[in-house]
């Protein structure tokens, strides 16, 4: 029983980690809290739903497809809303207000189009069935989710640590002026980071939609609270922290639902958020970021 709970917790947690990774990347590199981020999560789920239903894609085709669409939308939204603010070096509060307004608008549009009815993936998506290993029940879609999360996180770590592009992204995160002095086309890198972030959010949306098989426009909003909890627990802009904190939140939530009360599950994230801010505002694994010399 405990083993099954832990397994479910790790599964949910790995998706939280994926979601938080995109959020923290956006914050860490672009330096803005972009509240539209949850919308890419909903977008990913809806695109995958329609791609499997009407374009008859397999789920492993629909996942990258939906992630890419969410990434492209993220580029457009960032360029339209935040591009002008960045160029004017506007204060942080303005980007918060602009993205808050945009979020309300985007969700209303989505609701007007799709209503708030809960939608489900066509049953063919789940044909794969499930395994039983020593009493543990694992579905094929869960295996797909974990495999996808592991390869995406690994790929991102490789990009950031081992490639020239990753070096440019990190340079931009630290000092955009000097990155430009070294020849980095900052506009291009900003688009790339928006794309990666949006795609991570979109992929997480597909996975949560798949795991719970329930999709509706505001699913991204409830995810944002978890996203905030994870990036604050893990430390703003901290990639490794986001992964570990995401897993921790998933496991704690499942254990709470299993051993305390299932109605308490959604309070866990909020509780973690508040406790972290009280006791360790730099995040569990955070050090105060090294200041520019």
């Amino acid at each position, binding site marked *: 029983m405990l083993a099954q709970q832990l397994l479910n917790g790790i599964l949910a947690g790995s998706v939280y980690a994926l979601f938080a990774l995109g959020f923290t990347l956006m914050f860490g590199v672009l330096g803005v809290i972009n509240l539209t981020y949850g919308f890419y999560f909903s977008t990913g789920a809806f695109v995958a739903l329609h791609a499997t239903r009407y374009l008859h894609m397999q789920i492993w085709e629909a996942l990258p497809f939906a992630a890419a669409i969410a990434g492209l939308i993220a580029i457009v939204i960032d360029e339209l809303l935040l591009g002008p603010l960045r160029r004017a070096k506007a204060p942080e509060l303005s980007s918060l207000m602009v993205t808050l307004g945009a979020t309300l608008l985007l969700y209303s549009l989505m609701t007007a189009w799709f209503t708030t009815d809960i939608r489900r993936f066509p049953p063919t998506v789940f044909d794969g069935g499930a395994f039983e290993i020593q009493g543990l029940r694992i579905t094929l879609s869960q295996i797909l989710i974990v495999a996808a999360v592991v390869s995406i996180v690994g790929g991102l770590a490789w990009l950031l640590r081992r490639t*020239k592009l990753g*070096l*440019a992204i*990190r*340079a931009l995160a*630290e*000092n955009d*002026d*000097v*990155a*430009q*002095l*070294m*020849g*980095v*086309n*900052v506009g291009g890198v900003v688009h790339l980071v928006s794309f990666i972030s949006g795609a991570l959010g979109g992929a997480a949306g597909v996975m949560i939609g798949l795991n719970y098989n329930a999709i509706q426009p505001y699913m991204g909003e409830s995810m944002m609270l978890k996203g905030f909890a994870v990036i604050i627990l893990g430390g703003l802009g901290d990639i490794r922290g986001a992964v570990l904190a995401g897993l921790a939140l998933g496991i704690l939530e499942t254990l709470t639902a299993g051993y305390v009360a299932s109605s308490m599950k959604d309070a866990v994230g909020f509780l973690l958020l508040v406790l972290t801010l009280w006791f360790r505002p730099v995040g569990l694994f955070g050090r105060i*970021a*090294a*200041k*520019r*010399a």
Partner: protein
Amino acid sequence: MSAPLLAVRGLTLAYDRTDAVKGIDFDVHKGGVVTLIGANGAGKTTTLRAVSGLLKPRAGSIRFAGREIAGMAAHRIARLGVVQSPEGRQVFANMTIAENLAMGAYLESDRVAVAKRRDTVLARFPRLGERLSQSAGLLSGGEQQMLAMGRALMADPKLLLLDEPSMGLAPLFVEEIFNIVADLKREGRTILLVEQNARAALEIADYAYVIESGRITLRGPAREIAENSEVATAYLGM
């Protein structure tokens, strides 16, 4: 005399509404060291930011190798070979020394060329070579200055812009930094050196401009400027 590598004419720069630089003219010829000296807030850094493309000029022209670069995007200007070591060093503190140097060679895709440049830079700054995998934020101020200069040299610039490389350093480091600038000059690098340490800058430079409140008030061969009585009282503390 041949056309200057960098020719600045009537350059006017402003933050919001106040003009920080008011119509300055200056030239840098290939293979020479030109220094721009002046007090705090005179407009030296502002001028370098404009040459690098980080600040759009309000008016005037900046020609590099015969091409108008005023208002061009900063990464394009870097691609033309104008590379800056900025004021206050601004190394990437969360990156290692090796990564900082790699960032300097960001535009060079030939790995062999990059490795060669790195060897040259490490030969010039042996302290950096001993700690390649260390985080740059942990270096001392003087070491960070060497890293910032090494990073700029990794780009093999056609024009090297140095903004106050001696700022805030202990005398021993100051001397070392100026020795390196002198070496670079001997090797034929073209350098625009911004300094408050006028004495040392005038010793190295071929030609000098004095900037005061956004205007160039004096220009001439560095040796003559050093002997100018006004400069002596104002900047050389005599």
